[in-house]
């Protein structure tokens, strides 16, 4: 790609933004926060409404707290989208993991319950991986199908344990709702997690294989990549991440239900796409998806504050996702 001085400035700007997709996203996030502050003075900067503090750590902490499970589920989407896939079972896996953990921890203790919850995520992930990698079913269909099966299993399981009662492990609610140094405890889990995901994508052979398979599957195979092994590992990892996100979300909500994390699924796809990950594979960044998750959360807060009827809020949410994505595509010229 050659940049000559004759290019129109807008094109050069677009190119610069494509090389650094984080810059426009962070700018957009700040613009949204400023808009929020204008709409409801004092929510972000309490000093303006006569209280203490320049920036409200409570508000920022809350924003981060609710963005973390979304950003973790977005990791599933980013990783699978790198290979032109998608993981639509992530939301249900998170719900199943949370429900299993909450019901089993009163019977068998916390540690086995957490391990079993993570194992269910791993199992669903491996099934997805086998379907996508070996039998070569389209990932969209495969993960929709396993999600459906998992929902049915969850409902049957719920009948079996209905008398046992559910309890949220104190360790999880500490992680979900507690705060250390003004920031939610979940952040101290999420920072190492996101560093791990970014390291995995950028600096490991596995990450490079994901990019290679997404860019040109045939070329990757002819270069000796055993694609089925990569797919199984990828979807197993995705299932595991989804289960982990479900456990954290359980700690935040503290009320297990049969559809706990399901509403997070579509926003997690939106966060990944807003963050600059191509649904056709070969291009993506997890840092972008994290900012995408924050953007979605700020939008959500804003629409709630405006006290619109639920229908208008849902519709506006959809329109904004579309507008942000369209703007992004237009500026960077990427798909």
């Amino acid at each position: 790609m050659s940049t000559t001085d004759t290019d129109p400035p807008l094109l050069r700007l677009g190119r610069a933004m494509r090389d650094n997709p984080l810059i426009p996203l962070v700018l957009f996030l700040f613009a949204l926060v400023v808009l929020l502050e204008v709409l409801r003075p004092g929510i972000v900067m309490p000093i303006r409404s006569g209280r203490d503090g320049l920036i409200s750590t409570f508000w920022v902490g809350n924003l981060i707290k609710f963005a973390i499970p979304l950003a973790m589920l977005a990791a599933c989407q980013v990783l699978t989208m790198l290979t032109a896939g998608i993981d639509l079972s992530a939301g249900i896996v998170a719900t199943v993991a949370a429900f299993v953990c909450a019901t089993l921890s009163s019977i068998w203790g916390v540690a086995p319950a957490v391990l079993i919850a993570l194992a269910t995520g791993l199992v669903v992930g491996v099934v997805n991986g086998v379907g996508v990698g070996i039998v070569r079913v389209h990932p969209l269909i495969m993960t929709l199908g396993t999600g459906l099966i998992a929902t049915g299993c969850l409902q049957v399981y719920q009948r079996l344990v209905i008398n046992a009662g559910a309890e949220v492990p104190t360790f999880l609610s500490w992680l979900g709702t507690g705060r250390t140094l003004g920031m939610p405890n979940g952040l101290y889990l999420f920072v190492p997690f996101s560093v791990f995901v970014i390291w995995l994508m950028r600096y490991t052979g596995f990450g490079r294989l994901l990019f290679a398979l997404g860019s040109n599957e045939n070329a990757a195979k002819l270069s000796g990549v055993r694609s089925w092994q990569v797919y199984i590992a990828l979807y197993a990892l995705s299932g595991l991440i989804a289960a982990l996100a479900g456990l954290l979300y359980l700690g935040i909500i503290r009320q297990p239900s049969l559809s706990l994390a399901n509403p997070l699924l579509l926003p997690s796809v939106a966060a990944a796409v807003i963050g600059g990950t191509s649904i056709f594979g070969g291009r993506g960044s997890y840092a972008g998806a994290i900012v995408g998750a924050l953007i979605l959360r700020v939008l959500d807060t804003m629409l709630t504050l405006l006290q619109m009827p639920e229908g208008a809020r849902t519709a506006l949410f959809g329109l904004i996702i579309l507008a942000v994505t369209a703007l992004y595509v237009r500026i960077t010229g990427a798909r």
Partner: protein
Amino acid sequence: MTASLGKHAWVLGLLVLFLVLIGLTKLVQPSFSLAGIESLTRAALPFAFATAGMAVVVIVGGIDLSVASMMAVCAVTAAVLMERMAGVPAILIVLAVGLGMGLINGVLIVLTKVPDIVATLAMLFVWEGTALLILNTPGGATADWVEAGIRGSFLIGWFPKALVVLVVGIALVWVPLRRSKLGLSIYATGSDETAAFRSGVPVGRTKIIAYGICGLYCAMGGLSLAALTGIGEPVPGPYLLASVAAVVLGGVVLGGGKGGLLGPIIAVFILRIIRSILTFLSVDPNVTTIIEGVIMVAVVMLGAALTHRGTRK
């Protein structure tokens, strides 16, 4: 030659499977008769229309995740309108609303160049919100004759009216289209967009029209939904997943360019009859969900393994 044989073999195989399943139903429930088929057809009506709409956009190379939400909008519109005005103009308005929503989806996809799956994901929220704005809680009413229009039998004593509605509704739009230049454009765009564009096919316009037809079928689905329940329900039903499953089971390749509408519609009936067999066997409805999921995944796996082509784009 072999490819076309394979396509017909798939549809024929589905038909045989369906007949076998009807026989099986008769075995497990000896009282199952033509009345059973009539109620099966009636229950399958919204699923069949959603699947037809999904099939058209999948053939053109896209996917529409907003089908269930569009059906919800059409169902509440129908219920609200029929409370206030005569049935026929209300139906026409609902069909226009569906067509309009589909066209909006298509225009947005073509203009913004956002991938279909993301754009329709966003529109899923928009239409869901619209349905809630039109009618916040289930309500409204449908005209009696609309409900009677899909209930019972047609002319001769055993032919279900719902099947007539289904065949006429789908064929009226699809058959003239399939035989026109536009139908060819739809398949060409789905097979290879770049090649179609270079051969002079107006790719953008074709896509928009395909999404419009999907919206139109969703309007028919929403109308049949309102007629089935007698009210308008603003919350989208389980039609998205079911329609994608039926489309794939019906032999339409995700990625576009292959398949027709007959296969997917037979697939809808297969999926519905499996559910009624399980109900007759008094299987727990939750276990039924698991079995349905397993069947769906197994069939898709089998299809992928048999055809030996990557279904991914």
